[in-house]
């Protein structure tokens, strides 16, 4: 069985161009290619060119992919690793979009809070070089309340729809994933 398997790999690799094999040999990607494949490539190259070029350091893991996977939740990794991928959309695109939506939702809070601070009367007066006394600040309470209300409202109407959209995308993706299983 093992011999047959080896013969099959040999036949497949033997069909490849010598340059192609040299490239695989030198790149030495042990994640993409098995040890048997490297044994066979060595054998074929020895036959074709009489020598085997030096190899790079073996690649034992694809760092970028692993780093990216680390950030993903289990269900997201399952979706990406699933053999049967959707025809009409790219899972990775949805995951990236979801990630970007969450980032923008956080940015919304930061920007509106700073804008709100700048709209406060006593902050504006500070920029003009006037420090208000406590009684002066108390007089600006209506302005503080209006600013707080408008800032809060601006955050709510932007933050929650964005968060909802991220969750809707997540749920839709799960529904689609589950519908694949019933096929």
């Amino acid at each position: 069985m093992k011999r047959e398997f080896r013969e099959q790999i040999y036949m497949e690799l033997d069909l490849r161009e010598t340059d192609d094999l040299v490239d695989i040999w030198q790149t030495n990607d042990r994640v993409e290619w098995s040890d048997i494949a490297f044994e066979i490539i060595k054998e074929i190259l020895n036959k074709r060119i009489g020598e085997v070029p030096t190899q790079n350091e073996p690649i034992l893991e694809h760092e970028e992919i692993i780093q990216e996977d680390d950030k993903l939740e289990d269900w997201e990794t399952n979706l990406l690793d699933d053999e049967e991928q959707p025809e009409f959309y790219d899972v990775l695109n949805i995951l990236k979009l979801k990630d970007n939506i969450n980032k923008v939702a956080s940015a919304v809070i930061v920007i509106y809070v700073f804008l709100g601070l700048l709209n406060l009367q006593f902050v504006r007066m500070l920029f003009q070089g006037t420090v208000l006394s406590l009684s002066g600040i108390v007089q600006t309470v209506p302005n503080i309340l209006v600013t707080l209300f408008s800032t809060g409202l601006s955050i709510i109407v932007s933050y929650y729809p964005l968060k909802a959209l991220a969750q809707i995308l997540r749920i839709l993706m799960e529904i689609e994933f589950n519908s694949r299983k019933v096929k």
Partner: protein
Amino acid sequence: MEKQDDLFDWKHLTLWRISSSANIFSLIVVAIYMLAAIGQGFQYNTFAQNQYQTNLMGLFSKAPFYIFDFPLQIAKTLMQGLIYYLVLKGVALGLKMIVETDINYREKKIEEGEE
């Protein structure tokens, strides 16, 4: 895929078209808001010329309040564009997922019928 082509009817096509339009509009919206942000920069420059007889940099030195106000207003405009962009992109991809889900269920229904 051939099977999927058969299952892809006019309802899916409608959703697909809306999805494609949303995708295109998302890019247009971003471009418009970028232009709006640039326009806002020019507005501040005009304001500096009218109120302080200086340019934007001069405005920052004469009224330090605008050192913070200017970038925040620009960021706010860009962020609004970004929100619309993400919502439209989300709608586009969401509709595609709905089409995919429906086709998966239809395939299942046909397979059950064959059995």
